[in-house]
């Protein structure tokens, strides 16, 4: 699809030929993830995570479909139906723990995948569309994960739903009606549980659809690579199969070892004990915290503590709560504009000395601080830290990156991928 030297699918047997003439599906697969897709030869292990994210989605869909066969979406029965799965359904404990931890591992691999894109500039031309679709997938994942966490109808499910839908009530005028519309009532109840279950089942397939677009868009320019230098010729690439299928097989083994270790030996490590208490609308947990993968955004939400208004008049234009909500959504939405904020023509962070400093000493620490503080109670030290980190987060993308792109003097780039790999200049073109 992408390069003229890509190997062509040649059906061998009569049946393959017959199929290829009528519905060339094997050809599509061959060109997408087979020998027909030439990939830069210098990809490092960070490039394994796209495939791993796909595997994680498949794990979630397969385990999820089985869970849905035994789950009962009712405010009276949901909690006990999950325990029924854990206790009475054959191997139900495995399916449920795999699904529960599968969500966490899906986010782990996607976060590493996004990190790869951020550091190696994978969002830059000509790959903007891949990035935009990727951010869309990320948003869909967050919605799906949130609604999935509500389904067991434990204390954190209920109060998480209460808090998250409460964000909408911060919107002026239409906020409260909008919240009631989303929940189908004044508080999370049967109507909300039913629609969350319905959407939780639907959205993964929407994600799968957007992933197809994501991969389609990827195949137009082809994969990026750690040097950020574009592919110049056949010597720069290897066919996806068998080279990267083999490498991804190894990566998959390592991923599954971690996944299995947590799922079988510490299945509740990433969860919250309160979600083993049935939902009780009359008893608020001491600390309502979302799942770990939402903590950075939760920290941003809570970091806004002052109203925006006209000083000394008491007129409030944007209350702190609304600002927190706007900032929390903004912190993800700004990623849509990233290809146009970072204008440096150099893709890879390896050759960007200034960018690299802000990336490693600014962005990464501030994200770690936000994740840590997001799970802490609102004591002064955690609030101050998350305010500092959140301020840096916004400054990094919206202020620092555009300036850095303009003033930075990048290091000299290798002439080609092959040269970067072998250390030898390219042979003269034949």
């Amino acid at each position, binding site marked *: 699809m992408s390069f003229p030297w890509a190997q062509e699918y040649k059906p061998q047997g009569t049946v393959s030929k017959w199929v290829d003439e009528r519905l060339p599906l094997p050809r599509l697969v061959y060109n997408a993830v087979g020998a027909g897709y030439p990939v830069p*030869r*210098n*990809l490092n292990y960070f490039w394994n995570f796209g495939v791993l994210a796909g595997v994680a989605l498949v794990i979630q869909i397969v385990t999820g479909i089985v869970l849905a066969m035994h789950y009962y979406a009712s405010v009276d029965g949901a909690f*006990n139906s999950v*325990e029924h799965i854990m*206790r009475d359904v054959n191997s139900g*404990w*495995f399916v449920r*723990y795999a699904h529960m931890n599968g969500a966490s591992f899906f986010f782990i691999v996607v976060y590493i995948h996004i990190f790869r894109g951020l550091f190696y500039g994978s969002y830059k031309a000509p790959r903007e569309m891949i990035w935009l679709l990727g951010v869309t997938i990320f948003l869909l994942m967050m919605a799906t994960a949130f609604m999935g966490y509500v389904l067991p109808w434990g204390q954190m499910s209920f109060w998480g739903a209460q808090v998250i839908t409460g964000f909408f009530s911060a919107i002026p005028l239409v906020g409260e009606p909008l919240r009631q519309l989303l929940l189908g009532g004044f508080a999370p109840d049967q109507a909300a549980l039913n629609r969350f279950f319905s959407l939780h089942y639907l959205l993964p397939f929407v994600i799968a659809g957007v992933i197809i677009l994501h991969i389609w868009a990827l195949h137009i320019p082809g994969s990026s690579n750690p040097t950020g230098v574009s592919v110049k010729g056949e010597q720069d690439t*290897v066919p996806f199969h068998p*080279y990267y299928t*083999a*490498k991804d*097989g*190894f990566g998959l*083994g*390592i991923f*599954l*070892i971690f996944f*299995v*270790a947590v*799922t*079988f*030996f510490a*299945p*509740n490590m990433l969860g919250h*004990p*309160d979600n*083993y*208490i049935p939902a009780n609308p009359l008893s608020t947990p001491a600390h309502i915290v979302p799942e770990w993968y939402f903590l950075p955004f939760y920290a941003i939400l809570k*970091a*806004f*503590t*002052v109203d*925006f208004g006209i000083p000394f008049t008491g007129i409030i234009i944007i209350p*702190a709560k609304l*600002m927190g909500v706007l*900032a929390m959504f*903004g912190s993800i939405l*700004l990623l849509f504009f990233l290809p*146009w*904020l970072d*204008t440096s023509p150099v893709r890879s962070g390896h050759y960007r000395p200034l960018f690299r400093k802000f990336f490693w000493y600014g962005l990464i620490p501030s994200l770690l601080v936000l994740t840590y503080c997001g799970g802490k109670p609102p*004591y*002064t030290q955690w*609030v*101050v830290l998350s*305010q*500092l980190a*959140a*301020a*840096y987060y*916004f*400054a990094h*993308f*919206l*202020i620092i990156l*555009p300036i850095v792109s303009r003033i930075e003097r990048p290091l000299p780039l290798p002439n080609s991928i092959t040269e970067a*790999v*072998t250390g030898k200049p390219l042979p003269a073109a034949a």
Partner: protein
Amino acid sequence: MVRLIAFLVGLFFSGMLLLGLGDTVITAIKEPAVPSVEAEFHEETLPVTFAHDGPLGKYDRGQLQRGLKVYSEVCAACHSLNLVSFRDFAALGYSEEQVKALAKAWKTEVPSINPETGEPATRPAIPADKIPSPFANEVAARAANNNALPPDLSLITKAREGGPAYVYSLLLGYRDQAGYKNEEGKELLKEFPEAATPAGLHFNPWFANLNIAMAAPLTADDQVTYDDGTKATKKQMAEDVSAFLTWAAEPKMENRKSAGWAALGFLLVFTVLAWMSYKTIWADKKH
């Protein structure tokens, strides 16, 4: 244009956050946070180890049977176990006959109806029944317990930070509040005179807010007579019932761990083979 708008938005958000930071710091200096009594006197769980700890740990059947005895003679007076059926006790090493006898002899009968009149009634439990609550409903439970609701214990070790160690600590954690000092030597009632335990509650520094409605359930050694001759010290009973409740919350733990080792073994072989084929395939390509 995009960059100009982004710059302004960034300036606004970062600016408001830094303003908030200043505000937080000023507030903290003007009105320093008062340490709460919970923050100063709530205790971490006591050290305790169980046979089922760790990736190789298995339940100690003898201990689970002793724990069941403590549960049935002490805890069950107030707490149900409504996710566990009598028949599940077979996993503790009881025969079918023993389970039947256990269910039949259970102190609380299960709700039923009188087959002749249709009036509400109770009948002796059978193995298929869940362990019943001694109270007919929440109102009855609260009425009998000074308005506190004894929680169901089926998932208690998974629903509390610290798990079985929390249950163990709580059971042994009742203290006399008068003169109580923490490890730093601070005396609670001198530091927080207003935090005296209200009437009807019981002081227990392992409970989240230090005052628990439940009176100390384990009051003396030999409160329970163990069938296997183990000396029933308070510590022993607390340990045994914590192990039992861990089993009640996670009855499939042993299946899970053994399946986990099988899966890991398989994956190890798979990964080594995958690594070898990766190296073989790439042998001729510098990358």
